């Protein structure tokens, strides 16, 4: 987490079991471990009304530990994009009182929150926990293209190629940090690129 932050930058918490009958978990990679840790304090039978959707990281780990929680439904998805239709349907059919838990990378939390917001769930009612990579999802303010998994500061827009300052300014609606051309005034100034969000 960056030392100095601003108010639009999301703040994540620690997952905790919420009262209710229906619980939907979305996690990627090491986010699985946030669910496992939370399960230690969950009341008996908590996962009988839970659905866990998991996108494994490149190492493919943590599927078995989630399965061991014996949720009512368990689904492994290869990517967020592939999961989207299922997630939209689940939220559209959800009963009032569904509890949402998001854990893992900022990109996963942000995109899942974006879909949930569109389904009418208030962002303050969602449980979130950041685990794993600090990589950012960034929108280029110039060409509006989204670059996934940005780890450097500055970063190159994967669409228009401008060199962008990755700001802390964050839009929940776009599920993205803002990228603004870092050398717009004089393109010959090339600041060094550092690994800022490993």
């Amino acid at each position, binding site marked *: 987490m960056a030392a100095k932050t*601003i*108010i*639009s*930058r999301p703040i994540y918490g620690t997952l905790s079991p919420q009262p209710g009958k229906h619980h939907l978990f979305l996690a990627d990679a090491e986010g699985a471990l946030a669910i496992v840790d939370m399960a230690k304090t969950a009341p008996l039978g908590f996962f009988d009304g839970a659905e866990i959707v998991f996108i494994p990281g490149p190492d493919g780990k943590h599927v078995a530990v989630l399965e061991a929680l014996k949720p009512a439904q368990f689904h492994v998805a290869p990517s967020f994009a592939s999961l989207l239709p299922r997630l939209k349907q689940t939220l559209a059919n959800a009963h009032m009182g569904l509890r949402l838990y998001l854990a893992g990378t900022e990109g996963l939390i942000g995109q899942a929150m974006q879909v949930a917001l569109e389904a009418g769930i208030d962002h303050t009612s969602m449980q979130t926990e950041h685990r794993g990579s600090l990589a950012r999802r960034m*929108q280029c*303010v*110039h060409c*509006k293209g989204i670059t996934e998994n940005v780890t450097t500061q500055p970063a190159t827009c994967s669409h228009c190629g*401008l060199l962008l300052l990755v*700001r*802390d*300014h964050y*839009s*929940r*609606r*776009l599920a993205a940090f*803002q990228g*603004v*051309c870092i050398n*717009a*005034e*004089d*393109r010959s100034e090339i600041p060094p690129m550092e690994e800022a969000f490993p």
Partner: protein
Amino acid sequence: MGITFRKETFRDDFTFKNSPEHIRRFPFPFHEDSYMYAVNIEPHVVGPKGSVLENLIDVDEHYVAEMQDRALVLAEDPLRCQSLPHMTLAGWDLLELLMEQQALGYPEHFTLTRDGDRWRWINRPLGIDDTFTFGDTSTLPYGPMEYITRQSQGDFCILDQRDGNLWMDAGMVTTQADWSLDFDIGMNFFEWHAPVPLAHEKGIFVRALKFLTNIQQGKPARRLNWTMTINPRLDTSPENYHKWGPDRTTVTPENVGDKVHLRVELQSFWRLPRSNGIVFPIRCYLIKMDELVTQPKWARRLHRVLRDLPEELATYKGLTRYRPTLVEWLSKLDDGSATSPGFGPD
């Protein structure tokens, strides 16, 4: 008699200028020889004749040219005008406010006649004569907010009030000082102001929000804000920063007077009657240094303000690159004598 509207541009050949009368009425934003953030909000009441406050919604000699520039921006990037689905009623509120105020202040240019919900709007400077049904979006060529803000100077943000906060849920923003409606739409008051330095720590936004959420219908408020712009460019959006940013490297001691502009925003805040939203017009006034220094008091004061401005603010306002050149140029017009209190020229 009415206003003589100038033919001028805010891009390419930059022919924008202020007439001598418009220089005198420029809303100079410094009432003393230094500047720091404050909650400088006051009631938006009618001011002296001949000032920008003569009418609560000001129309000036740049009206037609500004509306033409807005149309160019929107043709290139329609996302500069957005309204979330729950904001249509607030759009009608704004249409009513702007039609009423413009017709009231400038009857020779604008006429509004109402027969129940059947309204006729005549805008002579832009050659518009439309009859429509108030509340029925299908009777206008655009949504109500876009329709009327294509005919009104300044940017407009419409804020929804809920959960004790204000939410930036609609806007027409084509003349902004470096912030993106497309990025900030849907954010609350603290979130969209997040990048502003120093002011959060001073509690400015907490106090400002408290004030704004209590604004009553018929009692608008206002404040001034300022920055500087190289060339009289209205569209200084972050979207186009890579296009206008290089202008900042072009300031020389020879061209300061013509290129460097003080950019003042007259921001006002109005409660909307049906939607209970707040509309926040941000009216932008530009003046080039050559025009500003025709008022010796303003030249002396601007020199002192810019010379002593905290570095963090100078950086945020994007002045860093040309501030030394500008301060040096202004210093020659500052004999060190006292300036009179208040904003106006001597």
